[in-house]
């Protein structure tokens, strides 16, 4: 090494200085500072250059408030929201693995076929040119636009057909382009296409998804609508028993299957054939399958009820709801107070479907289903004939939800988007790298030993990818607990119960009262949680990867 120890130190410092200053000022220092702040009652609205009050040291009071005190109700609610959104994580990791395996398989060429690549680009360009020409030549709408209540303008049938034709051509073009790219550019294309969402994840992307989730004109609901409509038609036209029966059968079958599989797994474990890891993995997969299957059966059982409101979906005003409620109180065995609660919850107006299901949620009323249906049906008839105040709107039954405004569906909407965003991202690339590092001879030995494709995956691929998975899970957990803020802010503005912990922190620190102290406490609680989860993952995972 050059120079003396002292001199080296000076030189090193010279190189290090700008970075070090930044580090101390914006990373190391703030960490300590934050800890201090969390122990104070610092509020910018109370303690600033204009006020005379000074910051008080209050010890763990902030933490107490958060964890079991005044703010705890909010805090744990938001914690639940954060964790809910983290459902996207295991699903997207599994998805990334699946995508990586698919891309890596021989289904698509590993390298672009060189001559073909240029041919393909040329082809794509010419297709685009044709499309462009066709589109430009398409008929244009009338200049004056008259909108009806639902937004339909005054267009001739011919014009609508022309537009649909263009749309179809465009769609066919997309499909063709994707297939061509897949066949000739191969892996590189899919890798890039799937990575796009991760790359662009940001406000712009969230705005796009906000549009996609629009209840009437959004892409998602327009795809869902016909699907749900089809299901509804099938369900309404078949006896309800089928659905109840299938649902119950499915539930039983699932339980039986899980039971048997666990027994088999336990016996293998006892016989020392497989280790604890395999047993845990089995339990985990069974749990996931079980929950999905049971959820499915739950849906099946409820289908008849939910779809049983075909054409003519009305809504009642408050008076009508009250009247129905009074009638219900006359049913034998009904608790009047319960009915009052239900009626109050329905508010100033509710749809027929909501009214019905709310009433049927009362156990006694559920037993008297016929009378409930009678009461509601009568009112509905009157609404339809204009004798009672209410609205007649479109089709009822199974309708796609108003995603971002519905407190029930907003979080799932964010989860779905989260999965779409993450599935083709960094994790997939990591898995691709991991897959390419697996020596081919392991697969060959397994084939000679007699392993089928699935067995090869379990015994060669999955164990070889264990370190990668381990890393991914840890990183995702750390990120997941802190995430969700941007999405919530852009897409729902925090409404519909989508506030996550980070959003809470933002609200506390940078809006309203600027409660910096409390907000810092939130941050440190989150830190503790992250730390705990990471430590758990670490301990658990490293034992797993070394087993």
């Amino acid at each position: 090494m050059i120079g003396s120890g002292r001199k080296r130190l000076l030189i090193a410092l010279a190189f290090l200085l700008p970075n070090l200053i930044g580090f101390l000022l914006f990373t190391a220092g703030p960490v300590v500072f934050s800890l201090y702040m969390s122990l104070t009652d610092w509020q910018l609205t109370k303690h600033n250059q204009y006020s005379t009050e000074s910051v008080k040291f209050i010890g763990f009071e902030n933490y107490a408030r958060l964890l079991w005190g005044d703010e705890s109700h909010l805090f744990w609610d938001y914690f639940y929201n954060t964790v809910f959104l983290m459902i996207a994580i295991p699903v997207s990791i599994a998805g990334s693995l699946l995508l990586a395996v698919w891309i890596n398989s021989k289904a698509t060429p590993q390298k672009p076929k060189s001559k073909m690549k240029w041919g393909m680009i040329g082809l794509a360009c010419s297709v685009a040119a044709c499309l462009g020409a066709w589109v430009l030549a398409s008929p244009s709408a009338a200049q004056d636009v008259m909108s009806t209540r639902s937004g339909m303008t005054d267009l001739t049938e011919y014009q609508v057909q022309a537009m649909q034709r263009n749309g179809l051509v465009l769609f066919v073009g997309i499909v063709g382009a994707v297939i061509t790219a897949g066949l000739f550019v191969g892996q590189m294309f899919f890798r890039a296409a799937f990575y796009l969402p991760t790359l662009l994840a940001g406000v712009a992307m969230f705005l796009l998804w906000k549009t996609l989730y629009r209840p009437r004109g959004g892409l998602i609901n327009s795809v869902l609508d016909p699907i749900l409509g089809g299901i509804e038609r099938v369900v309404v036209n078949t006896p309800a028993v089928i659905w109840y029966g299938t649902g119950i059968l499915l539930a039983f079958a699932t339980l039986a299957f899980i039971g048997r599989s666990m027994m088999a797994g336990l016996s293998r474990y006892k016989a020392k054939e497989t280790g604890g890891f395999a047993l845990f993995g089995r339990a985990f997969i069974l749990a996931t399958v079980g929950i999905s299957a049971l959820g499915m059966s739950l849906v099946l059982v409820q289908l008849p009820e939910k779809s049983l409101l075909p054409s003519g979906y009305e809504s009642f005003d408050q008076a009508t709801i009250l009247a129905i409620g009074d009638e219900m109180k006359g049913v034998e065995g009904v608790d009047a107070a319960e009915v009052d609660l239900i009626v109050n919850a329905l508010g100033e107006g509710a749809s027929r479907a909501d009214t019905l299901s709310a009433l049927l949620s009362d156990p006694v009323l559920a037993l008297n289903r016929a009378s409930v249906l009678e009461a509601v049906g009568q009112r509905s008839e009157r609404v339809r004939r204009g004798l009672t105040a209410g609205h007649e709107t479109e089709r009822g039954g199974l309708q796609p939800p108003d995603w971002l405004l519905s407190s029930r569906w907003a979080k799932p909407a964010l989860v779905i988007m989260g999965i779409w965003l993450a599935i083709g991202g960094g994790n997939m690339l990591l898995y691709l790298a991991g897959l390419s590092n697996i020596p081919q001879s392991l697969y060959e030995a397994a084939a000679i030993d007699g392993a089928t494709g699935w067995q090869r995956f379990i015994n060669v691929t999955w164990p070889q990818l264990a370190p990668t998975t381990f890393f991914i899970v840890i990183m995702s957990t750390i990120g997941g607990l802190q995430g969700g803020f941007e999405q919530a802010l852009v897409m729902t503005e925090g409404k519909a119960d989508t506030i996550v912990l980070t959003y809470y922190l933002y609200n506390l620190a940078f809006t309203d009262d600027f409660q910096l102290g409390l907000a810092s406490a939130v941050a440190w609680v989150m830190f503790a949680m992250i730390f705990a989860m990471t430590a758990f993952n670490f301990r658990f995972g490293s034992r797993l990867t070394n087993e």
Partner: protein
Amino acid sequence: MSDRSPIEAATGPLAKLARPATFVALVLLGISFVVPFVWQVLISLSDRSEVDRLTETGFPSRISLDAYVRVFDQVPFAKYFFNSFFVAGWVTLLQVITCSMAAYAFSRIQWPGRDKVFLLYLGTLMVPGVVLMVPNFVVILGLGMFDDYTGLIIPAAFSAYGTFLLRQFMLTIPSSLDEAAAIDGAGHWRIFTQVILPLARPGLIVLAIFAFLFNYNSFFWPLILTQSENLRVLPVGLLQFNTTYGSDVPAIMAAALMAMIPPIILFLLLQKYLVKGIQLGAVKG
């Protein structure tokens, strides 16, 4: 005789479907990933009234760039663009400089306390960003960098992760090169600039890409650190635009689309480096 190995040939008819089935699955997924963007383009080119029924007609009745014009009319969008590039550009430049210098100090010079300080750096990597949000705000406020370009650039110009990445990269350069240069009479600065930096170029490029993308998409910090409109960067500007003109869906989509283009271009050009960079960061992690 086919070219498929007996392992593939001897599988049942169901398994033979595996290859084409996988391809179909990939294509379907590919389409589902591409369609939202195409949708976005279509909306951005349509008339305001047509937005909601676009799903029924499949195509706008008339294509126009009006929405794009509206974007620039209603907000200083060009300024937003400029701000984003300006800030991200400066951050990238500064990060590359400071991190490479620091990485050099950590990997090429033996000095007392080196490893302890590096451990400190590593330690902060474990600290989640959440913890830094509030204190940094106060610090920046205190330093008078609030609502100013410096507030957006200076704090971000430093990155422990970047230092870590470059250090790992530099460790792969054999030290015999340093020694040969030293014997030739070069001092540390010269070794740094003429030996190490050129060899570390791939790592520098990776860092630059990451830094640029991260900063370009950065939303939270600009949100809390800037107030005035002419300092807005794209993410914040988009949000603001949506809050005010949210009902003008084509314009929103047009603005979003324009904001998405630079990363796409960057990605298409430098795909290779990006992919490698992710893998590099993970392996050492």
